[in-house]
């Protein structure tokens, strides 16, 4: 029972002593648990909360790399909304998310179902599918550059087979570059999320499949009626995680499309734009911070959406 404001301190101490005698537990000060939490909280505060608060403060200033700024209110935000580069980058980020997330939710699930099969040598395929995850982003980028450049593997094959008459500009056209980067992201994420699904599939009771099979359900029907509902919570988690990483995509575009972010910067995503604005000796820390906050809000919206979907599912 919570002590009421009218209750005297003396009566409260008496009640606590009685409770201690009754339960054998010693009542401590309210802040004792916080003392144990303090080291962890301090780290979070120092390396996550403080930089975040600092970014919010900086986003309201015209600070530059080597010069503290002055308070400019919401000018940086107004500037962002009037900046065509911001809209291009935000559009690309959202497009990236819309295309990549469904692929990363569904394809690894299909892959996980396939590699669960008990056939000889399946371990090799599991490892092979996981290899891109441990490969460095730069190596992955270089491999795909060789595959996709105008005189690369794909174009050479297509030209030899007369499928195309001109090389497809995978890397030199903004839209194609974005698609190429999406392919790389999906390819790299397949193995990672496949492991998530393998864990989830391990929890699906085989008896459900056996019962359905006895009732005459085929593999496809069993997949949609048993596997999918059983791993749905994992699908939501994968969806949320891949949405967050899709909004943070930078490396794939940088390696495939160079430091300008595609021709004319047309394939830049929000993190790419933030880096361009904030980096270098003339970097605009204030504006870059405002863009970071906008990216944070965008991520928050999609995270909340994922949460809402998962709650709806629970109900």
């Amino acid at each position: 029972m919570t002590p009421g404001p009218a209750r005297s301190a003396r009566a409260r101490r008496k009640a606590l002593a009685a409770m201690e005698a009754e339960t054998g537990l010693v009542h401590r000060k309210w802040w004792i648990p916080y003392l144990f939490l303090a080291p962890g909280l301090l780290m979070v505060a120092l390396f996550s909360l403080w930089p975040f608060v600092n970014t919010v403060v900086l986003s309201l200033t015209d600070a530059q790399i080597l010069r503290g700024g002055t308070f400019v209110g919401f000018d940086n935000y107004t500037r962002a909304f009037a900046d065509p580069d911001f809209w291009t980058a935000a559009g690309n980020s959202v497009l990236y998310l819309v295309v990549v997330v469904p692929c990363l939710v569904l394809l690894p699930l299909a892959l996980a179902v396939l590699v669960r099969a008990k056939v000889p040598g399946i371990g090799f395929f599991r490892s092979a599918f996981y290899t891109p995850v441990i490969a460095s982003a730069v190596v992955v980028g270089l491999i795909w550059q060789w595959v996709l450049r105008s005189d690369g593997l794909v174009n050479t094959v297509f030209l030899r087979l007369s499928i195309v008459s001109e090389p497809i500009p995978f890397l030199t056209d903004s839209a194609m570059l974005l698609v190429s980067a999406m392919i790389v992201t999906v390819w790299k994420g397949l193995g990672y999320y496949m492991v998530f699904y393998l864990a989830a599939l391990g929890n699906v009771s085989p008896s459900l499949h056996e019962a359905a099979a006895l009732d005459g359900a085929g593999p496809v029907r069993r997949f949609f009626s048993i596997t999918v509902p059983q791993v749905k919570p994992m699908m939501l988690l994968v969806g949320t995680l891949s949405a967050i990483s899709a909004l943070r995509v930078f490396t794939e575009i940088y390696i495939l499309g160079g430091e300008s972010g595609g021709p004319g910067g047309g394939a830049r995503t929000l993190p790419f734009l933030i880096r361009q604005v904030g980096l270098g000796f003339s970097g605009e820390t204030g504006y870059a911070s405002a863009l970071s906050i906008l990216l944070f809000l965008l991520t928050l919206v999609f995270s909340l959406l994922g949460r809402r979907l998962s709650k709806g599912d629970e109900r």
Partner: protein
Amino acid sequence: MTRSNATRTAVATLVAGTFLSVSACGLGGSGAADVREGRKTGEVLGEITFRTLQLKPKFTAYVQGVIDAFEKKYPGAKVRWEDVPGDGYNEKLVADAQAGALPDVVNLSTDSFQLLGDRGLLADVAGLDPEVAKEYVPGAWEQFKLPGKGQGVYAYPWYVTPEILTYNRELFEKSGLDPAQPPTTVEQFFDYADKIAAASGGRYSAFMADPKGRLPGDWQKMGVPILNGTQDRFVFDTPKAVEWVERMKDLYAKGAMPKESLLKSDDINQLYGGGKLVFGPGSPGFVKDIKQNAPQIYAGTRVAGAVTGKLGHIGIYAQSLGIKKDTKHLDAATEFAKWVTNGPNQVEFSKNATIYPSNAQGLADPRFADRGDGTDAETVARAVGAQQLATAALDANTPVQWTNQVGDAVVREMQKAIQGEQDPKTAVHKAQEAANQLLAKSART
């Protein structure tokens, strides 16, 4: 409110208050506020810190030798050397400058020098010792003056890498060009590229398309003014600049440049080393790389003076040694910087690396006049580079106002035009508008 609730509220308020006040520190870190100048005492004493850019482990022996000799000459002085990798060098400088923790003697590139100098973090070395100017090549010495800061010079010039022209003789001949007649103007360079594209049949290209590597240099060489007289507005929107874009667009469409090179995602060394590019990078260091990695291509590599066009000379890009303005040991720091950049030490350095001395006495060393029999690209590159340096001048430099942001904005418009997404005239116009907006913004702040 109960006492415990009051305590919790107080703690929460304290934490929030601490956050906000600490966060507000982000506003105050100007890094350059009221830096007091160090004072000369006439005695070379004390421990100084010396930071270099990526010289370990390749040049450890050389640098340590220079330090040891200095400490032997001045027993009261001690040098603590720290070497920082290239990646993140500037970021570290920024962080140190913000914290007031710059080293006493620091290796600076052109852009980091300008930034730190502009913010008053570097000592005026000409003011400290006016006689020292004659030790250095004039173009190099002049480079370390700052616009609007009079005759002050804010760093000692160190090693220099001049611009040269390298090309594949065999591909030159295959394209119907005379290897003895390399291009000397940007327009001629484009004419040559046109012939190369016509002859190559897609097997090789002439040069890299990336506008970032060509601007504003190409425009300066074509006589395009970059800034107005008062240096506060970009004025490159001229018919000549439009002509440059038109030529680039035309050549790109004809295959004179590798398609992906427009985005700088191609490796020029790899393309040239693989015999797929006629013009190689314009740096003597590259010639050495090719010698090691592609000996066959090296054998057919020719070296000539850089394309200089209407300017008639190259720009100068020197590494430098800046002195922290508020160093506690000004005498030791300046003497050490002069020691590192003196003639004999720079010549010795050039024997270990493909660099050139900014020191007049060093550059006069016979080693830099020797062309050998005129067939070895590395030897010829050394002589050509040194010859170009003697007449190098500041006006061919990227102006301070052409910041990374300005460069990126211009490059984006150029890329669109070269790919045919917008017409050249619009591209140059939009590029100038964007550049001026950025310039006005930086002037306001």
